[in-house]
């Protein structure tokens, strides 16, 4: 297997392990973080803080590299426009996140923790993406 497959497999595995150790595969913990007017659970802030600190270091390394270790070039988003779809889409995502306490990463990782319900989430997330794709084509 090539480094182009092994690298994302290792990254995905570490990501899934991190989500699980951090409690993010438990929707009760995620909804607890969003419940700032109730029994607030700040755990998610530690998860996000830890990840952001490591990534801030990684972003500092990028300008010192000519190219990525196992790919030809960097593909970094360069858009800066704040659009209605960015804000509207993020709001819809946030509503869904609040309803079930699941976002894409934990939903997929939880396939081995709560298989039937995680599969229902992943399938409906795929359906939502498909609906938007079909809608955008017309």
């Amino acid at each position, binding site marked *: 297997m090539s480094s182009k497959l092994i690298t994302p497999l290792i990254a995905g595995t570490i990501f899934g392990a991190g989500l699980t150790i951090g409690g993010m595969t438990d*929707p009760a913990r995620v909804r607890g973080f969003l419940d700032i007017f109730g029994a607030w659970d700040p755990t998610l802030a530690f998860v996000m803080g830890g990840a952001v600190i490591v990534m801030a270091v990684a972003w500092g390394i990028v300008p010192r590299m000519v190219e990525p270790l196992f790919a030809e070039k960097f593909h970094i988003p360069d858009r800066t426009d704040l659009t209605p779809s960015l804000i509207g889409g993020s709001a819809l995502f946030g509503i869904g996140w609040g309803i079930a306490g699941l976002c894409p990463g934990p939903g997929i990782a939880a396939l081995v923790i709560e298989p039937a319900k995680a599969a229902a989430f992943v399938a409906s997330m795929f359906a939502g993406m498909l609906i938007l794709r079909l809608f955008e084509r017309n």
Partner: protein
Amino acid sequence: MTIPGFPDAAPLAGLIGGILIGVSAAIMLLGMGRIAGVSGIFAKATGVGGSGMSRGGAWAFVLGLPLGALIVALVTGGVEAQFAGFAPIVVAGVLVGIGTRLGSGCTSGHGVCGVSRLSARSIVATATFMAAGIVTVAVMNAMGMEVLK
């Protein structure tokens, strides 16, 4: 380790988990030159859109997520999780699917990768989905809707 006033919080486990997520995103960035945005990578893997990343690479990352969760569950002897019922999960899933494509990212791509490089779009997106999630949970609580079984 606990925080005074927040007996249910797990700050140390959260921090360790977060550092691992950051290491994973750093591997994707420095190794593959790509943003570790799960919604975009999932869209690429399933063929509904996403980045220019190879489809094989996208599937490798997606399959790694439950693999990592499985390893943690096996090592620790089980992972606690309290899920909502099927109806709210399906409604939430559709909203998450539409919203993350329309908004070009989710908690990982915007919240971790974008915020850490101070991208204005990602900071606005993260503030928006956090606010929407907070309002959603507050409204549901006010209406007495308990979704977690």
